[in-house]
């Protein structure tokens, strides 16, 4: 099993969620994060003081999937999260040793 972690623009979340649903992926976890990268932040002025805001709001999506869906999931996220501008984000893939569904105690792919 794989854990696909995507850091994307917040406004793309619904898009991605729906497209993943269509793929038969019915679970995911989202976190508000702040990203730093090529996309530049901005400067805010409050009276005489300048504050550089380097971190921009992003959303991290985590999706556990069975190995065989990996390519499709990456493809889907790539397409539905893309706006074509700097800051669209990244997809990270890591190996999952084990998945457990707490409610039922199921393990492995059927727990996803």
């Amino acid at each position, binding site marked *: 099993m794989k854990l696909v972690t995507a850091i994307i623009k917040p406004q793309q979340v619904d898009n991605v969620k729906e497209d993943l649903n269509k793929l038969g992926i019915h679970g995911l976890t989202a976190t508000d994060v702040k990203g730093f990268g090529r996309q530049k932040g901005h400067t805010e002025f*409050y*009276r005489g003081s300048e504050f550089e805001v380097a971190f921009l709001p992003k959303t991290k999506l985590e999706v556990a999937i069975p190995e065989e869906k990996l390519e499709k999931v990456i493809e889907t996220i790539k397409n539905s999260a893309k706006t074509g501008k700097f800051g669209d984000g990244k997809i990270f893939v890591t190996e999952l040793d084990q998945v457990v569904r707490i409610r039922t105690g199921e393990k492995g792919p059927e727990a996803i």
Partner: protein
Amino acid sequence: MNAGDTAWMLTSTCLVLLMTVPGVALLYGGMVGKKNIISTITQTFMITCLVTLLWFIVGYSLAFSEGSFNTFVGGFSNLFLKGVGVDSLSGTIPESVFVVFQLTFAIITAALICGAVAERMNFSALLIFIAIWILLVYAPICHMVWGGGLLASLGVLDFAGGTVVHINCGIAGLVAAIVLGERKQKSRPHNLLLSLIGTSLLWVGWFGFNAGSAVAANGGAGMAMLVTQIATATAGLAWMFAEWGFGKKPSLLGILSGAIAGLVAITPAAGFVGPVGAFFIGLIAGIVCYWASTKLKNKLGYDDSLDVFGIHGVGGTVGALLTGIFAKEAIGGAAGLLEGNTGQLWLQFIGVAFTIVYTGVFTYVILKIVNLITPLRATAEEETQGLDLRQHGEQIN
């Protein structure tokens, strides 16, 4: 006793109290970082209580009773408000109302100072400092301007507190900011919406402050309200357009700051100028305070956290001087420069200079003394973790 005047003065008192709690508390609370909100507002609230208690014990007496050193300060005949009964009058209103009305001015002056030392002052030191400051600085200056002391007898005009309240707190704040030194880290205003509420309450409450200073429900009060409204609005727009013109975006904090600058500047003038004078006072105050709070401060390098000096000190000075220019005989009985009376401007200058020196020196000395009792400044660790948690044991979640 006049019931109409009394009704308006009871109301004005409510309005001026509203300026401090929650007005100033929110204005300041919205501008500090998240970890210092509780600290900032607790300071304001504590000061409201503390100054009330002191006023009752001896403050009112020092400011408004007759004393042996009447030029500078009142006496002790109203200790514990002795002599203030149900039937005592002050002009056309009950003296009890006058006592509380004046108290609310003392409260806000002290509360405003905290803005200069926000995010780093030690709570117990602040408590002691304010207690001494109210008695040694506020009460005497108040007496000299409104209690029949020195400045009053010279003929300095200060309708509602340009010197007593604003220059006073502005200079005290500046001195305190310098003595305490810079914050370790400046924080972005956490929630300007709170500052909007605070500023709005200041604006509305200021009608009690300025129109209430007529101590009557009459044409003088009405005109004070009208000129206050005009100066405030003009200064708000002036700051906004100044900022916009200098290549920044028109910001909420900018227009709020401008409005406060206008309120401050019209304060000494409110009973003496007409609508057109108010317009110019607002215009000038908005621009000058913009410059003081964004350019001058950075040039001089002191860390006046929430611009008590840049807005109250500078705005109060601008207003006090412009009163000497725009005062109209037909309105408040005193003529200004534009009506050919050059002397008034000079008197205003003396009033300003005297207050700056008096407050500056005393504030400095008091701070140094307090520092011997308890450190003025929170520890570095408290500052890093936030005064909320470390000094008050509470957090905003």
